[in-house]
């Protein structure tokens, strides 16, 4: 018995051989690469190592979510770039989804004007290369914005200028308590929805969950303001003269035009693809489904929410995941317009200052890979949740 287990006649062993050979081939290729690189680098007097990550970066970055200046390390600069990449991706995905759903639904509208406008939007924006759109939003739209002294003024609290969008700065006291109250509110909403579902399924009662949830979301944080000493005030941006003809704003928060242009370009571009996914999803739900739902007395809103959307989402989610991944990867075009994302800060500036090409490019590639895989995992989980549950 034992003998047979180890012999070539055992099917399991036979099946394993090609796989083992493949892994062996892969490993030898990797090892060959590594040695080759090592020898060549040795010949040219280049050392290899990640020690540079803790060295002082000595360059500044215009826009950062965490504290940073040139006295911090290259590792910290990498983190700043990564957070900026994540920030523009999240903003882009958020805007692209909203715009994509609106345009996708608009394309199905019976109103000729709305449907045609949506169609033209999709055809124009998905057929122009993204880098040109980024340049358009940055250089063409930027030139149209006024200089700080003639800013577009939003009620004296916010100013849109060529140098950026200046908004009031939030000054919190006891911000952590406010955070806990928000978390508490979300937990309560979760339990409320579970309770409402039970009520609907067991007793046929329909609770106004949306209104109740909104109430909880407002009231609990409000209580933290009134009772627990949380307070919020604002630092408003103020005009400051730099020289005889140039101005800027100080005290507020500046959202740099590079971020605005990049987020706009990415979301306008990706929204066209999401719109087509949404249209495909909605059209993919059989007409009979809607008619059946109507025949058991559901109203229009309920048909959309309970019958059409759950089925449409199954068609929409997988290709939309691809679009989210594309948007994240496309954000690396930021370097062209000086938005300090991971590529510009780390794979270009840090690479230039240190000369560590192999180390930095591999770190950057691995980071994009992990980002994309994280999005994939999240979206696959959501997809599974939405998939047909066979019984």
């Amino acid at each position, binding site marked *: 018995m034992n003998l047979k287990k180890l012999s070539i006649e055992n099917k399991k062993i036979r099946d394993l051989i090609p796989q083992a050979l493949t892994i062996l081939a892969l490993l030898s290729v990797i090892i060959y*690469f590594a040695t080759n690189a090592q020898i060549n680098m040795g010949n040219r007097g280049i050392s290899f190592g990640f020690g540079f990550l803790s060295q002082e970066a000595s360059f500044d*970055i215009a826009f950062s979510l965490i504290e940073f200046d040139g006295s911090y390390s290259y590792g910290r600069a990498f983190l700043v770039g990564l957070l900026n990449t994540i920030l523009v991706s999240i903003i882009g995905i958020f805007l692209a989804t909203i715009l994509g759903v609106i345009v996708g639904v608009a394309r199905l509208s019976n109103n000729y004007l709305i449907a045609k406008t949506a169609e033209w939007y999709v055809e124009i924006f998905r057929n122009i290369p993204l880098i040109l759109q980024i340049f358009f939003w940055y250089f063409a739209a930027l030139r149209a914005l006024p200089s700080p002294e003639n800013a577009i003024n939003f009620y004296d609290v916010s100013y849109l200028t060529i140098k950026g969008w200046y908004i009031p700065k939030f000054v919190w006291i006891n911000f952590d308590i406010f955070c806990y109250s928000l978390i508490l509110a979300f937990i309560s909403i979760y339990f409320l929805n579970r309770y409402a579902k039970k009520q609907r399924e067991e007793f046929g009662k329909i609770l106004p969950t949306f209104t109740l949830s909104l109430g909880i979301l407002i009231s609990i944080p409000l209580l933290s303001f009134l009772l627990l000493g949380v307070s919020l005030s604002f630092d408003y941006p103020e005009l400051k003269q730099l020289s005889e003809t140039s101005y*800027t704003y100080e005290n507020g928060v500046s959202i740099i035009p590079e971020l605005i242009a990049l987020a706009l370009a990415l979301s306008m571009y990706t929204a066209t693809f999401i719109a087509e996914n949404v249209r495909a999803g909605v059209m993919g739900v059989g007409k009979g489904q809607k008619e059946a739902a109507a025949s058991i007395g559901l109203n229009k809103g309920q048909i959309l929410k309970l019958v059409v959307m759950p089925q449409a989402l199954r068609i929409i989610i997988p290709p939309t995941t691809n679009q989210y991944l594309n948007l994240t990867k496309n954000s690396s075009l930021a*370097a*062209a317009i000086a938005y300090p994302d991971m590529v510009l800060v780390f794979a270009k*500036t840090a*690479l230039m200052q240190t000369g560590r090409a192999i180390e930095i490019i591999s770190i950057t590639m691995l980071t994009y890979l992990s980002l994309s895989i994280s999005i994939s995992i999240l979206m696959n989980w959501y997809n599974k949740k939405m998939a047909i549950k066979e019984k």
Partner: protein
Amino acid sequence: MIKSIKTWILVGFTSLLLVACGQGGGGSGSKKSKTLDNTKKAGFVKCGVSQGLPGFSNADASGNWSGIDVDVCRAVAAAVLGDADKVKYTPLSAAERFTALTSGEIDVLARNTTWTLSRDADIGLTFVGVNFYDGQGFMVRKNSGINSVNDFKDGISACTNTGTTTELNMRDFFNSKNIKYEPIAFEKADEVVQAYDAGRCDTYTTDKSGLAAQRTKLSAPNDHKVLPETISKEPLGPVVRQGDSVWEDIVRWSLNTMIEAEEYGVNSSNASSLKDSDNPAIKRLVGAEGELGAAFGLDNDWSLRIIEQVGNYGESYKKHIADTGILPNRGPNELWTKGGILYVPPAR
């Protein structure tokens, strides 16, 4: 299974190609120069230049490169191959330039590159000399009333190129003056110019020669001026890979020949007639005395060809930098005999 085998064949094939491509260049320590052999075999000098900086390396509408950096490449080609036109130019961004050199994509990097300790010592490069002494400055709008860097105030936004010493000097400068500033760093010079022109930034900072050259690209060049202060030393010069000392010497002495020729009044039109000059230094320069070329495996007319085909440093400067209106005044880039700091070791 079949699909995955296909994938592996593809991966294997690609990696073989990559390895094959990575074989070019690289030097041994011995007297024979692998780079020189490869260059002779290929029939052209592989030279890395900028993506377009007037005066230094700039391509015209028909793709002909010119500039004082380009002339270094041409000098090397004249010395090694006998024809200054046998150069293959590779335009490189600031971020790509050193990788292109260390990987063997190019053999000479003549791309207005600042000589610094860390670049020279740390990343497998060797600087062979200086062909332009520059310094970093600031450009502002004339009507801003800013006449000196002392007029800068907190909150000023400054546009520049990423991955350059400029970015680091800018930080040192603003820190020493204790001024808060917003650094906006673009990958390409053209985008810096556009953003500054649009009013995104209050000042544009880079090497002064660069400022002078880029100013011509602005929509109204006369509305802008360069401030008098220079905040850094920027010795720009050609670079080669570390480890091929013969090739290093060839590039170094090609540049030195151009400068020394100017010092002794040898230029492209009179060089061949000076073969019977009374001055032995001049005779050595035009190959009529000594066996200088043999030291790096070249014939004795290598330096004569450089002077005849490319010209001396003064001719090159006049043609590309002075006559184009970029920097009519030579300043520190004048010979040491005329009050500048151009001083090269003697060719003997």
